């Protein structure tokens, strides 16, 4: 297992009223789950915690997460990831999916 935390700067996210979290994906082979939670204390930061079953890819993780924080306004968000060997394109896709779930009004 590889576990690490990292904070990225990001533009503040306008959290929809009533929403506190959003989840995308499942923990399965080649897949991962991403949880977005509200983090009102740091409106211009994306706090990330990654737990991956495959060690040795921290560089790829930081690149994928950094890109996401730069491309989407996700400040004020705590992101927790449980990974079981997803490749970077799946990681990016799940982040985007969780973001979409969040923006979608119930």
């Amino acid at each position, binding site marked *: 297992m590889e576990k690490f935390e990292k904070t990225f700067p990001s533009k503040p996210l306008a959290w929809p009223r009533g929403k506190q979290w959003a989840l995308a994906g499942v923990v399965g082979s080649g897949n991962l789950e991403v949880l977005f939670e509200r983090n009102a204390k740091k409106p211009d930061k994306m706090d990330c915690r990654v737990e991956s079953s495959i060690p040795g890819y921290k560089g790829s993780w930081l690149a994928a997460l950094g890109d996401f924080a730069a491309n989407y306004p996700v400040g004020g968000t705590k992101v927790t990831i*449980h990974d079981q060997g997803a490749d970077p394109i799946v990681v990016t896709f799940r982040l985007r999916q969780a973001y979409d779930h969040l923006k979608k009004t119930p």
Partner: protein
Amino acid sequence: MSSAPLFHEQTARQRLASLVDPGSFTEFLPPPERVMSPYLPLLDIPVSFDDGLVIGRAKLGGTPVYLAAQVGQFVGGSVGEVHGAKLTGILKAAARDGIPCVFIVESGGVRLHEGSSGEIAISEAMRAVFECRAKRVPTIAVIGSDIGAYGGMGILTTCCDFRIMTEHGRLGISGPIVIEKWMGKQAYDSSNRALVWKTSGGKTKFLLGDADVLAGDDAASVAAAIKKLLAKSAPLTIKILKARQQELEKRLKTFGETSDPDAIWKALGIRNVAEASLASATEFVALAKKNRFINH
């Protein structure tokens, strides 16, 4: 072809969202609560926020229901200590409140990584099913994906009042690979998908009466099937259990020596097995109507 997503391809959360009345689902112990397995990290296996089981309350056609949906992709949908405690909790809530309990089953049974605590967890869940049944609170299991219901979950599923299956669902105790390992490939070839589905798949289980309903592979069909059962319950008395035992003995006598599952389909009145294999759920139910082994 309809554009609705196929039930067997949906994830547990997608299934729940597409089954219940829009916006009515409230999850218990949602992901931010992080009620997760304490054992998997010790084995260097990733954990999941919901431990592979989504539970909550919702409305189905206006009727309140408690729901549990297993995440088959996460350690085979297996029942660990936390997963099992959530299962038991939702059943006990159903018994207490007199609200029907619906399971979307997708599990190979006990999570072997968690050993005895997994075994105990599933036994507690079974006891809770009988608590519901004693109070005549309906328990309904839906088996609609390839992972199916095996091991302890196969047993728990058959403890429920009713079982709804789609043709993708499978129901059994020992899984096909386990049977092959014990009996040999000549006795049971687990790589022969037609054989596996003809022995444990939804259509066969419906013909044999183990499944009460054969539903289409979409949420609307499954939801319609559940709604019809919400107001019913199957009483559990010594007399009924004895009658069931006799039915099973009769089944064993009739089919115990049969090695070809097609012969069972034919004996149960399916004239054209090839056509019936490809038939939709609705067509198959019409074909099977008069000849099911057990008529409820």
